[in-house]
């Protein structure tokens, strides 16, 4: 089975079940809203893909020169262009591209190996997902934990420490932090691997290309240990950098919520600070944080580009950069469509979650 299909089964089916559940149990307003949002996702992706399609062709340089380089005589260039449909009128090319988006058959890469794009994405998308999911969890967990503590203990040493940490970590270039961690934990201390997804000496049968999943389904515990060890530094790097903004947002919202009258009333009723924090302050403070998750997804993908480069992580970000430089139109368009789809799905999920968390929200 193709890895992309497996990825869909692993992530898409639970998401679909959740969606159907919310759809069936939600208010009619929510159902209408969800229908509209899903319907709007299609033109949104199309608009983005269209912009990318034309921008790639406006940019100087093209895949023919980039691929053939010095060997590109006029005859060979002509044949290359013919072979890849680059001689067709621009709107014919565009129509073909849009058709491919709907059939999820993105054609072949224009450069180098000229492999099917879906095969290349099937190798790289799982790598990116395997890195950004734990990084997001780390960013959220750390950001919310430290932010809440800082909010509750305002003007304490831990509050100041957390604020300094959040600014410092957010301002740090990801590639620099990655190199720093490699140096400290990989070279000086020797605790973690420097780069890659798995020790190349450990054999692992790859089915989904999500190496954690592949290790588990093949009961290859040595591989699982190696995969988890290789995930530490990239996750730490990406997660820490992104945690700064969650920390600050949580902190300020906890402070504001703590000043609300209903919190003062709860406190007057003798409810413990822990309960107040969990049941009142944090739940309300989470609403803007959840909104931010949707916005941070795009930044997360941008951060993944740098993290993947530093840690030799063969993911979508590195692939995108390579292909932009080579003017591989089909590959770039396909990756952008996937990125757009990813951001759209997360945004939709965030909106739904938002409505569930905040009963005041009505669609």
């Amino acid at each position, binding site marked *: 089975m193709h890895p992309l299909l497996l990825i869909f089964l692993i992530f898409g089916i639970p998401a679909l079940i959740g969606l159907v559940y919310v759809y069936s149990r939600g208010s009619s307003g929510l159902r209408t809203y969800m229908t509209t949002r899903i319907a709007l996702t299609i033109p949104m992706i199309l608009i983005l893909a269209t912009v990318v399609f034309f921008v790639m062709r406006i*940019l*100087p*340089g*093209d895949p*023919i*020169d*980039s*691929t*053939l*380089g*010095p*060997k*590109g*005589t*006029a005859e*060979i260039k002509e*044949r*290359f262009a013919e072979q890849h449909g680059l001689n067709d009128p621009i709107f014919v090319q565009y129509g073909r591209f849009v058709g491919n988006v709907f059939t999820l058959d993105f054609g072949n890469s224009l*450069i*180098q*190996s*000229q*492999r099917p794009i879906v095969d*290349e994405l099937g*190798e*790289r998308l799982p790598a990116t997902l395997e890195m950004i999911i734990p990084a997001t969890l780390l960013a959220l967990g750390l950001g919310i934990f430290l932010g809440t503590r800082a909010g509750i203990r305002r003007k304490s*040493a831990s509050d100041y*420490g957390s604020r300094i*940490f959040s600014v*410092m970590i957010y301002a740090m270039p990801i*590639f*620099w932090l990655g*190199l*720093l961690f*490699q*140096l*400290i934990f*990989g*070279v000086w201390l*020797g605790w973690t*691997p*420097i*780069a*890659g*997804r798995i020790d*190349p*000496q450990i054999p692992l049968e*790859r089915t989904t290309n999500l190496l954690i999943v592949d290790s588990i389904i093949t009961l290859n515990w040595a591989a699982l240990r190696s995969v988890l060890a290789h995930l530490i530094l990239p996750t730490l790097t990406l997660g820490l950098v992104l945690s700064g903004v969650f920390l600050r947002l949580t902190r300020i919202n906890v402070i504001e919520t703590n000043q609300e009258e209903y919190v003062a009333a709860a406190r007057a009723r003798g409810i413990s600070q822990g309960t107040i924090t969990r049941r009142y302050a944090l739940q309300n403070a989470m609403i803007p944080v959840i909104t931010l998750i949707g916005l941070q997804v795009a930044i997360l993908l941008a951060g993944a580009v740098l993290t*993947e*480069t*530093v*840690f*030799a*992580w*063969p993911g979508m970000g*590195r692939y995108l950069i*390579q292909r932009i*430089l*080579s*003017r591989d139109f089909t590959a770039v368009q396909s990756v952008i469509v996937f990125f757009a789809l990813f951001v759209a799905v997360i945004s939709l999920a965030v909106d739904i979650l938002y409505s569930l968390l905040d009963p005041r929200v009505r669609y």
Partner: protein
Amino acid sequence: MTKKLLLVIFALALVAAACDSSSDDTTTTAAAEETTTTAATAEETTTTAATAEETTTTAAAAEAAVCPSESGGGTVIIGTTDAIASLDPADAYSTRDWEILRNFGEPLLKWVPGSGDELVEGIAEGMPTPSEDGLTWTITLREGLTFGDGTPLTADIAAAQLTRLLTISETGPNQVGLTLGNPYVDSIEAVDDVTLQFNLPAPIAFFPQLLASAAYIPANPATYPEGELNIFPDAPLTGPGPWIVTEIVPDETVTLEPNPNYYGDAPGVDKIIVRQFADPQSMALAVQSGEIDVAWRILGAELAVELADVDGLNSVVVPAGPIRYLIINHVLEPTNDPNVRKAIASVIDRDELSDVIFGGAVDPLFSQVPPGFLGANEAFDELYASPDLDEARAYLEAAGYSEDNKLQLPVWYPPEHYGATTADGVLLVVQQLEATGMIEVDVQAQEWGTYIGAVVGGEEYPVSVLGWFFDFPDPENYLQPFIENGGIGTMVTSKEGDISPGVDPALLELLTASRAETDTAARAEILDELQNVYAEEVVTVPLWIEPEYIVYRDGICGDASLPNPESLNIGPTMEFVYSVLGTDGS
């Protein structure tokens, strides 16, 4: 309290590491380098190397890493930042691709590992013999040859597979056949089960060298069908060479294990894993931490110097490297004026380039043919005594320029493609040009994807910079690409004619004569004259030879009975022969 202490320790660690990093302000430049290659021109990157002299010292002091008589076997992990572009010998045309092809395949002839001038039999039984008119060459295959999967390798199969180079190579993206096949060979046929005959359109003196290139590896028909390229085949890949490629994980690793059907000695180690990195800095850290055993191309001078100080590592300059040169467009203004070209040639101070950019660690290049090759001379130095600013001004005056009417000269370069040193070199060249007081340079940087298209088009850049590493070690391969029309060195092509636009036809006559001349002394004389005319015409302006570096951990060793064991037997041909690698068993 404990938490606060941890916080303080973390902050101190950050500061300490920041101090360590700030001492190396070129680290980030190296990290940002793009290292994907698409041609055998050996697109390589190196970093600013004011301290490169130290590396040379290190290399000179490096003792040969000699294995015990019996290698300890085991697995050797080699790091690289080069990407795979093609794994079909009828298409592949990059250093990384050829390295893999040469290890699981083997050409008819091969270079003794570590040497650049000792040609020996590969899968051939003896050296090729030419006919009297030099138009056919005959060569015999070893008896009982097989591919790694046990398929017999007969002359019929070899002829059919090598013919792919002549017939279908041009359908691929890398088209090695257009450079190493079609210009020199008309057809290839099997005379009997073990004898191959090559029919040439014209006699060439360097035909044996040509047969040692990776393009002349007979591919296994089970993987590479006769009428179709297979650029990215699935593993296992088998050929007649000492290894089998057992696994390829795109962008991650290539794994090789010994070929049990190889005719020669078994390799010294049990497995080779080639790991791909996205940037040289991570590769350097990986070899430092022991995650990889060898950091090979493309490391760069700066990192090689840093790693030379690390215990347990050996940092060595490889006695091979690509050249850098200025492409001078002979059709566009103002460089279509011979006086302008000569003025440019006169102001280039190669010693200053070598000293300032590389700390004296590179060799200045005074002819397009580097020193050590047959007939190589120093024509640019003899003709222009460069730098000679007075001479340059005289040429500029002859072209109608003065201090009040300065020559406006656009100079283009790709800032990211060749790394920081080439970019720095170009900027120094700009200073040298402007030192005449009669040239005003408009220096322009352009990202490679766009740059290469513009250079190839030949309609935009009067002066630009490129790099080159030979496909086969013969002066021909340093001249033909720049003289013949469509030659891939100048990249400036026109639709008609045999010679690069604006270049003296005498050069083509001399080139043709040098190809056919089999007497070494006579050929050297022709090549000498050819380089003089080349310099007179200023076809290109050669600048310097850029070094390559290899860093490996203690316990990894080359073969002391072969040349250059200290660089793991990587010699002037820059071929990394994995089968000569050994370990001390630790």
